[in-house]
């Protein structure tokens, strides 16, 4: 039997959030955390969370498992449960809509700020804008982000200033377009980042790197942005 403690909150019926203890029979198997959540939901349909692909691709089921953010669908119990208890909470720092469902508006607003799309106003060539293999390689480790928000909601700087600090996820995407040789808006992009909050609230704590389920490294991307700002200014 696995002891599961879940954060429950339904704004329509509860005055405040509470932790609910549930026993789950895992049949001795090393299930994924999402499987455990589905088992609970099969007996209590009021339990709310997001999920879709169940294979680490869509980024819907970012949750806090025993204090660590991650995707429930690709986190086996053996990886997160020490002892026999699993504590499930919503991603920290964002407003809770219900149970494990959080309001991601602030996270998306930061994503929108970095204008995450290719900008190039020169006349397009007949077929497509080409890159060399080396130029393309620079985008590896950047384009794979699935916007699960595990990193930004693990970042203390994002907790305190989610409206002003872009956060690791948004900055990884900012660098994805700064590093793209086909994008010509580099100068405008950098000019928008050179304030005390957008980039420079990162203090290199590396919580983001620790939790990214895709194994990406936002701290490194932030370092590259800082260097670009530095060489632009000197």
């Amino acid at each position, binding site marked *: 039997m696995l002891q599961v403690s879940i954060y429950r909150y339904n704004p329509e019926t509860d005055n405040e959030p509470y932790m609910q203890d549930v026993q789950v029979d895992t049949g001795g198997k090393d299930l994924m955390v999402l499987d455990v959540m589905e088992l609970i939901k099969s007996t209590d349909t009021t339990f709310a969370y997001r999920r879709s692909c169940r294979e680490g691709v869509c980024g819907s089921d970012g949750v806090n498992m025993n204090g660590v953010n991650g995707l429930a669908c690709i986190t086996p119990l053996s990886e997160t449960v020490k002892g026999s208890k699993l504590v499930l909470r919503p991603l920290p720092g964002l407003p809770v809509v219900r149970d494990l469902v959080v309001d991601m508006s602030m996270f998306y607003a930061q994503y929108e700020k970095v204008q995450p799309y290719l900008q190039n106003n020169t006349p397009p060539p007949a077929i497509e804008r080409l890159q060399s293999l080396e130029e393309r390689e620079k985008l590896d480790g950047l384009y794979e982000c699935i916007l699960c928000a595990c990193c930004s909601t693990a970042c*203390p700087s994002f907790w*305190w200033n989610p409206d*002003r600090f872009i956060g690791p996820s948004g900055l990884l995407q900012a660098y994805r377009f700064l590093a793209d040789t086909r994008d010509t808006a580099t100068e405008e992009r950098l000019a928008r*980042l*050179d*304030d*005390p*909050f957008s980039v420079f*609230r990162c203090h290199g704590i590396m919580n983001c790197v620790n939790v990214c389920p895709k194994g990406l490294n936002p701290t490194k991307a932030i370092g590259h942005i800082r260097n670009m700002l530095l060489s632009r200014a000197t």
Partner: protein
Amino acid sequence: MVTAVTNLGRSGLYDWLMQRVTAVILLAYFLYVGCVLLGGVDYPAWKELHAQTWMRVFSLLALLSLGAHAWVGLWAIFTDYLTERLMGTTGNVLRLAAQAVCALIMFTYIVWGIQILWGY
């Protein structure tokens, strides 16, 4: 672009660079003073050292660095924890008060430091 009127250099990059440069100056200063102290000094030698212009300039540089370093660091801390987001309007009042107190303390230290350095 997020603007802030109370940070030191108006730009995040400037503050960041300032924090690094002042840290290096402080490290050099304290290492040097530490070495002198470990080497063993008596009062006349200590007074002699601080009577030299280059040492006074070095000390003043370290003092100014300390002020700038502390301002940038504390500014970041105050804008993390004393904010409208965390405690409503009280946050703004507390933050401005804290910044004013810090500014006053640093200003006092710097003036007092100059007085000590060139006063004896």
